[in-house]
């Protein structure tokens, strides 16, 4: 997993509420047994005018000119600005894989669906929660200023605007630690292997049927 400490990048809008993971990456691309290569199919049904299939050369497909990510001013964006309940629906981790593969390092929204939120941290993608008012202000600024960039500072837990304004956010300490250091949490959990075994012994004594009869 890629570490994230401070990131400065161009911002792109996804200006609708309840964006579901089917929209982020449609089901036909979930047949892949790999973790990478989902970026070209991010928001596939919104981004292209034809029906996407796995294995296509996406550079030859007709683009939907109305979709923000296809517009010149948002090319190279690495911060996605979104509305409430982003990432709802299916638990597919292919959604953060696609966002990350496309080049996003952070998302800003007033709220996220729980499973999607968890999945982001496992993939070097930072989901930032700001208030509705702050998100609205960022949307206004983004639409008003071509080339609108933000600085995401996970160390200090701040979103910084070019004019010096600071919007603080907070992240669980453990998740922050893993993301700052690019750490895989399985290795960290296995440091507690002894505790896990103790728990199992205790549990098996109380409720043996959980471990098969």
């Amino acid at each position: 997993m890629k570490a994230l400490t401070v990131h400065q990048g161009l911002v792109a809008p996804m200006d609708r509420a309840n964006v579901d993971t089917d929209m982020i990456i449609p089901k036909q691309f979930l047949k892949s047994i790999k973790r990478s290569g989902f970026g070209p199919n991010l928001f596939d049904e919104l981004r292209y005018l034809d029906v996407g299939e796995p294995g296509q050369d996406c550079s030859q497909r007709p683009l939907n000119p109305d979709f923000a990510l296809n517009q010149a001013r948002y090319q190279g964006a690495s911060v996605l600005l979104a509305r409430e309940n982003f990432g709802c629906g299916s638990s597919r981790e292919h959604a953060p894989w696609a966002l990350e593969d496309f080049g996003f390092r952070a998302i800003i929204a007033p709220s996220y669906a729980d499973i999607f939120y968890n999945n982001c941290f496992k993939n070097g993608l930072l989901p930032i929660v700001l208030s509705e008012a702050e998100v609205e202000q960022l949307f206004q600024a983004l639409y008003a200023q071509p080339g609108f960039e933000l600085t995401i500072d996970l160390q200090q837990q701040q979103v910084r605007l070019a004019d010096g304004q600071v919007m603080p956010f907070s992240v669980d300490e453990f998740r922050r630690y893993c993301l700052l250091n690019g750490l895989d949490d399985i290795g960290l959990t296995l440091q507690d292997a002894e505790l896990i075994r103790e728990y199992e012994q205790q549990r098996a004594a109380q409720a043996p049927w959980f471990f098969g009869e």
Partner: protein
Amino acid sequence: MQTLYDKLWQQHVVKERDDGTALLYIDRHLLHEVTSPQAFEGLRLAGRKPWRISANLATPDHNVPTDTEERKSGIAGISDQISRIQVQTLNDNCEAFGITQFDMQDQRQGIVHVVGPEQGATLPGMTIVCGDSHTATHGAFAALAHGIGTSEVEHVLATQCLIQRKMKNMLVRVEGDLPLGVTAKDIVLHVIGVIGTAGGNGHAIEFAGSAIRSLSMEGRMTICNMAIEAGARVGLVAVDQTTIDYLQGRPFAPKQHWQQAVDYWRTLISDEGAQFDKVVEINAADIQPQVTWGTSPEMVVPVTAQVPTLAQAKSETQARDWQRAYQYMGLQPGQAISDIRLDRVFIGSCTNSRIEDLRQAAEVAKGKKVAASVKQAMVVPGSGLVKAQAEAEGLHQIFIEAGFEWREPGCSMCLAMNADRLGAGEHCASTSNRNFEGRQGFGGRTHLVSPAMAAAAAIAGHFVDLRSWEN
């Protein structure tokens, strides 16, 4: 005094961390072909082994063909090459790691959330996870069950634990007798309409009240299944006699320790006076048969109602979402729900493919014919055992004579990963759980309903109010 969720949480904490997260022990891990290959690959790359192999149970469901002919020659017969590789990969991984799998040719194969309870692999007091958001289904058994991503699938395989933060408690109490023609599906769609698709975010929802207690386990599973559509990863129903009766004699249920287990299970209820962070009270008498009109499960109204108008939107964002939904769904604000003409009908999915669902649909379809204007009406049982049971009861004959297709078990058109899908612009009455854009096929228009409502819609060719429908 603790809620049911508090008890389940506390009983599984291996270690609490300073930041409020905890290492939580996982009793049961269910696997399917779509969200597991990258997790197994991760294990291999790190040279790790599954922590406790017997905790895992796998079955392919998302990609499997439901066409009887295509199913006959097993994995090799799957015509979509990429699907075939994925199903084969699950097979290979289960063999390599020694994990029990009900493969495509096994009669016990089916949708993972139908198979677990049916086998008694889902038990009260367990923590259950699966790389699928509808894992909330198993909460009907007072198990702490939720969906996880693939990295977490790998984490559970390797450590039998997850790093979790405790959720908040929410109680949805539905009191009173359900009106005739109103089912578990209508209850949960109504609840989602009331609290919204993000209403349960960050919460475990316990469903309680006399209307919930009166439901069978199948009905309770339908309700918990869709907790995630209200934003809650976890749905729960307390243990009662219905739970215990359902489990007795199931293959994975305890035998030698049955009485000890039952005594423990009976403690899996919220204590009198336990505190919930949010309480929603619903009067069962107010619930009518529900139909979704839009592209989110919260865009739902009674069958007797109309597509809402922008004047009814609660915010500017909602008004914009509704406008987009009108356009995508090809509907006009103010249009009567009963005027929506249907092109296809799908009865199936982890929400509504159990025996009771098929019985309810068959009761409506008996002696009737699918309308000529409906291109396809399909019934997809949730598992091979559900299919066998339905056939033993003659339900398949009722469906076939009415003009429905009788299929092999799988997720099918709920998410259209296999060949079962909608064409662009087609309207479908579906017993599944998501009406998202493109969910059932590119440009497809999904209306979520109960099995009885779907069967009636297939026969009438449009939505009808079962309570007053004469055919």
